[in-house]
C-alpha cells in the first residue's frame, strides 16, 4: 500500500498562500506576491501529478478495480456517536482526475495572470482570491463526505463572487457578482435540502458508504414514495438542483454570462474549466445512488443537460461579445456532460456515458480554458470585448491565432484533437440510450462548430477593423500557458479514460464508433464551412439571414428573455406581493410594537422624573410616611 497521507497538503498549500497573501499581501511587492501564489500552485501541480501517477499506475488494484482510498480523515464535529462530521481526503479515479484538471488549469491561469493583471490595482488581492478559490475547489473534489463537500461548495461560491467582483468600482461587475452569488446560493438551498433528506434516509454522510453499490445506503432502495416519486429520487433531484446552479444549467444559467465581468483569467479558471463542472462532478460522485436508487432523477439530469446544451448553443450563435459566446458555449458543453451522465448505465461498457462525461470534462477544461485565455490575449491587444471591433488579427497575434484555432478544432470535434474523442463517446452513449437526445446532441455539435468558427473568422479573418494602435502579441507569461494548454487540447484525447476513470472503477474495452464519429465530423465540417461562407469575408449574408429569421434571431439575441422573465417574477410578483407586505408588516407592526413600548416608557418616565429631585429630606419624608402607613396597615388592618 502506498501512503497517500501527504495529499492533505494539496488543498492546504493554497490555503496557506491565501492567508499569507490575504493578510500580508499589502506589505509585499505585487510582483513577489504573484510569484508566491504561482510558486504554491507549482508545488501542488507537481504533487497532483505524482498522486495521479501513484494512484493510477502504482497502487494495488483489487480484482482490477481502483480502490477508493481515504487518505486522511479527522473528526471535525463529534456531535453524537452516530452523527459526526469529518474532514478528510478521498482519493478515487474521479477525484484524482479532477486534481489534475484543477492544478493544471489553475497553474496555467496563475502564470497567465502574472502577465495579464500586471499593473492592476489589487494585484496581490487577486492572487489571494485565486489561492482561496484553488483551495476550495481542491477541497470540494477531495471531500470524503457530503457535508464537507457542501462546505467547500459554498467556499467556491464565495471565491467566485469575490473574483467576479474584482473590479469593484465597476457597477456592472458588482451587479454580476451579486447575481452569481444569489442565483447559485438559491440553488444551493436545494442542495442542502437534498443532503438533509438523503442523510436522514441513509443515516450516513460518508461518500464511500453512500456510493457502495452493495452498501446499506443503496440496498435500502428508494424509500417511501411521495407524490409519485420515491424519497431517494426527491433527495437526488434536490441535490442535483445545487449542481444545476453551480454548473449554470437551465434555468439557473443566467449568472454565468454576466460573470464574464470578472478578469478574463478568472473566467478561464472558474467559469470555464473548474467551478462550473462542480455540478457534473457532484452527479458523478453520487452516481451509484442515482443509477440504483433514483433512476428518475437521472432522467432529469439527462433532459436538463440536453435542453441546456441546445438552448445555450442557439444563444451563442447570436452574441457578439467574445466572452459571452464562450460562456454560452460552456453552458452548452456542460449540458453535454450532464447528458452523458444521464444516459449512462453502471459497470463495464454500460457505463460508457459516465466515462465519456468525465473524459469530456477533462478535455473541455483544457480547450475551454485555452479559448478563454486566448480571448484574454485578444482583448488585451484590442481593448474591446466585441468581435465587431476585431478582424484580420491573424497577422498581429500569430501565437494566439494558432492556439485559438487548435481549441476551436478541438471543441468542434475534428480528429485527432481531444474534443473529437470525448464528444464521440458522449454521442455513442446517447445513441444507445435515447434517440431523441442523440439527435439533439448532433444538432448541438453542428451549432457548436458554427458559433466557434463564427468567432474565429470574425476575429482573425475578415476585413481589418480600425485599431487605435497596432495590436501586438501578448508577453511570454501569457503565450506560454496558451501553448501548453494547446498541447493539452490536442493530445489529451489519447488518454485511455476507459482504462482509468469508469463508473465501477474497472477498465473496459471501448473503441471509436465510426458510425457515430464520421457523421459528427461531417456535421462539424459543415459548421465550419457555413461559418466560412458567412463570416470568412465581409458579406451581407449574415444580416440577410438574421432578417429572414427576424423573430427567432431577436429572441435568441436577447437570450430568450430569460433574464427579463426572472426580473418580472422577482420584481413584479415576489417583491410586490410578498416582499413589500412583509416589509410593511416588519416596519409597522413589529417595529411599531417595539417603538411603542419605547415611547410609552419615555413618556411615563418624563412625567414622573420630578420625583427624583435630589432633595434628601423629601426622600426621607416619603420613606417615613411609607413606614408609618405600613405600620398602620400591619398593626390595625391586617387580620
Amino acid at each position, binding site marked *: 500500500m502506498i501512503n497517500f497521507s501527504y495529499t492533505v497538503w494539496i488543498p492546504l498549500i493554497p490555503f496557506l498562500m491565501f492567508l499569507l497573501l490575504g493578510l500580508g499581501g499589502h506589505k509585499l511587492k505585487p510582483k513577489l506576491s504573484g510569484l508566491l501564489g504561482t510558486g504554491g500552485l507549482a508545488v501542488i501541480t507537481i504533487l497532483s501529478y505524482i498522486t495521479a501517477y501513484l494512484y493510477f499506475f502504482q497502487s494495488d488494484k483489487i480484482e482490477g478495480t481502483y480502490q477508493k482510498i481515504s487518505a486522511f480523515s479527522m473528526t471535525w464535529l463529534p456531535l453524537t456517536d452516530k452523527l459526526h462530521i469529518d474532514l478528510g481526503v478521498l482519493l478515487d479515479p474521479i477525484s484524482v482526475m479532477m486534481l489534475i484538471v484543477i492544478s493544471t488549469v489553475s497553474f496555467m491561469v496563475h502564470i497567465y495572470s502574472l502577465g495579464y493583471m500586471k499593473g492592476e490595482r489589487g494585484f496581490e488581492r487577486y492572487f489571494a482570491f485565486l489561492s482561496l478559490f484553488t483551495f476550495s475547489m481542491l477541497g470540494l473534489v477531495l471531500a470524503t463526505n457530503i457535508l464537507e463537500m457542501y462546505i467547500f461548495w459554498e467556499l467556491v461560491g464565495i471565491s467566485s463572487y469575490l473574483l467576479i467582483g474584482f473590479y469593484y468600482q465597476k457597477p456592472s461587475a458588482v451587479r454580476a457578482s451579486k447575481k452569481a452569488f444569489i442565483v447559485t446560493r438559491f440553488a444551493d438551498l436545494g442542495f442542502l435540502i437534498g443532503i438533509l433528506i438523503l442523510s436522514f434516509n441513509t443515516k450516513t454522510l460518508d461518500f464511500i458508504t453512500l456510493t457502495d453499490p452493495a452498501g446499506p445506503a443503496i440496498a435500502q432502495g428508494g424509500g417511501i414514495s411521495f407524490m409519485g416519486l420515491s424519497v431517494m429520487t426527491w433527495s437526488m433531484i434536490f441535490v442535483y438542483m445545487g449542481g444545476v446552479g453551480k454548473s449554470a444549467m437551465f434555468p439557473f444559467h443566467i449568472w454565468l454570462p454576466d460573470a464574464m465581468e470578472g478578469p478574463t483569467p478568472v473566467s478561464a479558471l472558474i467559469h470555464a474549466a473548474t467551478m462550473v463542472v462542480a455540478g457534473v462532478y457532484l452527479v458523478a460522485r453520487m452516481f451509484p445512488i442515482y443509477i440504483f436508487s433514483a433512476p428518475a432523477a437521472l432522467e432529469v439530469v439527462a433532459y436538463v443537460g440536453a435542453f441546456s446544451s441546445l438552448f445555450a448553443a442557439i444563444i451563442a450563435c447570436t452574441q457578439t461579445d467574445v466572452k459571452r459566446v464562450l460562456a454560452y458555449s460552456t453552458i452548452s458543453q456542460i449540458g453535454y456532460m450532464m447528458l452523458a451522465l444521464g444516459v449512462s448505465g453502471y459497470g463495464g461498457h454500460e457505463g460508457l456515458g459516465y466515462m465519456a462525461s468525465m473524459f469530456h470534462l477533462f478535455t473541455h477544461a483544457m480547450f475551454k480554458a485555452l479559448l478563454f485565455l486566448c480571448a484574454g490575449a485578444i482583448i488585451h491587444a484590442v481593448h474591446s470585448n466585441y468581435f465587431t471591433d476585431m478582424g484580420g488579427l491573424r497577422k498581429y497575434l500569430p501565437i494566439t491565432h494558432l492556439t485559438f484555432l487548435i481549441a476551436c478544432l478541438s471543441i468542434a470535434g475534428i480528429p485527432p484533437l481531444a474534443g473529437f474523442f470525448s464528444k464521440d463517446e458522449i454521442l455513442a452513449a446517447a445513441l444507445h440510450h435515447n434517440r431523441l437526445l442523440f439527435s439533439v446532441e448532433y444538432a448541438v455539435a453542428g451549432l457548436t462548430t458554427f458559433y466557434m468558427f463564427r468567432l474565429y473568422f470574425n476575429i482573425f479573418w475578415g476585413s481589418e477593423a480600425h485599431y487605435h494602435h497596432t495590436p501586438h502579441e501578448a508577453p511570454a507569461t501569457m503565450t506560454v500557458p496558451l501553448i501548453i494548454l494547446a498541447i493539452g487540447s490536442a493530445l489529451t484525447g489519447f488518454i485511455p479514460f476507459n482504462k482509468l476513470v469508469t463508473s465501477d472503477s474497472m477498465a473496459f474495452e471501448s473503441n471509436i464508433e465510426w458510425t457515430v464519429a464520421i457523421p459528427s465530423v461531417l456535421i462539424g465540417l459543415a459548421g465550419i464551412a457555413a461559418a466560412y461562407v458567412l463570416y470568412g469575408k465581409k458579406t451581407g449574408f449574415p444580416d440577410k439571414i438574421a432578417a429572414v429569421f427576424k423573430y427567432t434571431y431577436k429572441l435568441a439575441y436577447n437570450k430568450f428573455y430569460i433574464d427579463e422573465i426572472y426580473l418580472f417574477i422577482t420584481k413584479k410578483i415576489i417583491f410586490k406581493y410578498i416582499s413589500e407586505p412583509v416589509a410593511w408588516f416588519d416596519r409597522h407592526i413589529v417595529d411599531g410594537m417595539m417603538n411603542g413600548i419605547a415611547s410609552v416608557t419615555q413618556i411615563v418616565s418624563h412625567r414622573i*422624573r420630578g420625583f*427624583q*429631585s*435630589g*432633595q*434628601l*429630606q423629601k426622600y*426621607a*419624608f416619603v420613606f*417615613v410616611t411609607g413606614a408609618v402607613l405600613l405600620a398602620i396597615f400591619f398593626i390595625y388592618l391586617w387580620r
Partner: protein
Amino acid sequence: MMNTGIPLQYFLVLATIMFFVGVYGFLTRRNLITILMSVELILNSVNINLLAFNRYLYPHKLEGLFFSLFVIAVAASEAAVAIAIIINIYRRFTTINVENVNEMKY
C-alpha cells in the same frame, strides 16, 4: 430586683417621644450636622427600648444589652463616616445646607 417604682411604659413613652423628635429633626432641619444629631436621637431611642424590654421582660438574659452595645458601636462608626462625608460636601459646595446638595437628580 430593681424595677420597683418606674413602670415599663414610662421608658416606652420616653423612647417614642425621642424617636419622633429625631424623625422631626431629620425631616425639618437643613443643617447636615443637625440631621446627624437627629439620627443619633433615633438610634438612642431604640437603645432605650431594647434595654427596657430586656430588663423588664427577660431579666435573666443579655441579648438586649448586647444589641444596644452593637447599636452604639455602629452609631459611632456611622457618625465617623457621616462626618467625613459632610466635610467633603463642605469642601465641594462650601455649604452643609442639605437643600443645596441636590446634584443627584434627573
